């Protein structure tokens, strides 16, 4: 996982020719931890500290009407203005793309970034929307029924990715 994050960090620097005007926004919960890790790695390499925000997309979900009960809403905390800057959205797993759609809609309610890029640790395929990540830690072919979980030490686990059969 560390090697994957290091590679993503180098790709971010290469693609953007440095860290000028870059900001990071993690999608709760896993994405926020990964955004902080990415920021730490970028600081090691380039010495610059990027602002990191946290996005909770619950209020922008497209499946609220289909759920039996309302999911818990947590706070969105973006303590900086990203107008005319580049926002790199960070999430743990890219699957249908619906989370990213919700995240982009919400970001645009906060301001008008010059560009939105997407970094994910795992791309497991099965997109339902035309969305593609700019930076991928690792691509995992999965079947739609499987569940992919990223466990992180920030949540009190060992860093690892588990794939479960939804049997």
């Amino acid at each position, binding site marked *: 996982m560390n090697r994957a994050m290091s590679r993503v960090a180098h790709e971010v620097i290469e693609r953007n020719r440095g860290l000028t005007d870059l900001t990071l926004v993690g999608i709760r919960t896993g994405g926020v931890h990964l955004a902080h890790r990415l920021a730490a790695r970028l600081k090691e390499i380039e010495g610059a500290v990027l602002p990191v925000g946290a996005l909770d997309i619950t209020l922008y979900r497209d499946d609220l009407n289909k759920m039996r*009960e309302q999911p818990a809403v947590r706070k969105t905390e973006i303590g900086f203005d990203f107008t005319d800057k580049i926002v790199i959205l960070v999430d743990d797993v890219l699957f249908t793309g619906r989370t990213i759609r919700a995240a982009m809609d919400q970001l645009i309610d906060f301001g008008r970034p010059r560009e939105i890029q997407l970094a994910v640790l795992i791309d497991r395929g099965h997109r339902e929307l035309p969305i593609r990540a700019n930076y991928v830690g690792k691509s995992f072919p999965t079947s739609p029924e499987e569940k992919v979980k990223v466990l992180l030490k920030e949540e009190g686990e060992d860093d690892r990715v588990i794939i479960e059969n939804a049997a």
Partner: protein
Amino acid sequence: MPLKSKDLISIKDLDRDDLRLILDTAESFKEVGAREIKKVPTLRGKTVVNLFFEPSTRTRTSFELAAKRLSADVVNISASGSSVAKGESLLDTARNIQAMQSDLIIVRHPCAGAPVLLARNVSSAIINAGDGAHEHPTQALLDLFTIRERKKRLEGLTVAIVGDVLHSRVARSAIAALKMVGSTIRLVGPPTMIPREVAHWGVEVFYQYEEALKGADVIMILRLQLERQGRGLFPTLREYANLYGLTARRLAMAKDDVLVMHPGPINRGVEISPDVADGLSSAILAQATNGVAVRMAVLYLLSGVAKHEPVDP
């Protein structure tokens, strides 16, 4: 974890977990109110009806803003200027609103029990915005939210509730909620305005304002409901202000960091002096701000359980 009830009629419909869920959710919604674009698409396509049979500025506006910030469609109906004035019964009005596919109905009514009558007869979620002298649950929730925000805790606080407890639905809801979270409650007011049933409420009763203020963390002032008076419960307004008005001199008897709250609208110079209402201890405007966040949380949490057929996740 969802709320257990389809409606919010009384604080007694909730348990401690529900209370915490509502307050935590409201914290997230408070952040939405601080954004430049104070709107999220969460309740798009839902219809919220404000059905108010009594005058209200704060509560109705607060619910309306809460619903609009969640992108719901909002309709306001007040007793005057609607077919209620033509003699339509409460249930008929509500059934007709329901027939227009409402999802949530917020009701304020002079008669205790009106919201529960609706809850039993229509499928929309019913939120009680004040019924007679019974309850006003969202007011108690926003009071708790404000106390928790300022004091960082709810347990173990001493809260003095002052004034016309007899007519006050705000007091009844607040007492139920504060008891649930483990606060000590003191009631103080003229003996004519302290109802006899307080003996069963598990609260301390004072008739001397100063006694009740000693060591208080929070002072909750009740509005003197001038429209419900005229029955000789106290001699004159001036005497009431003298005995039960919160002045700077009385405020000094409570703890240094005491919080002064009032559900509004305030009668300046009667139950609270202007310098206290506008002073550093006052949380009155914070209550209004928090009211919108708390009502967004209630609308959100009740909107999902209202009338949808369960779908497998």
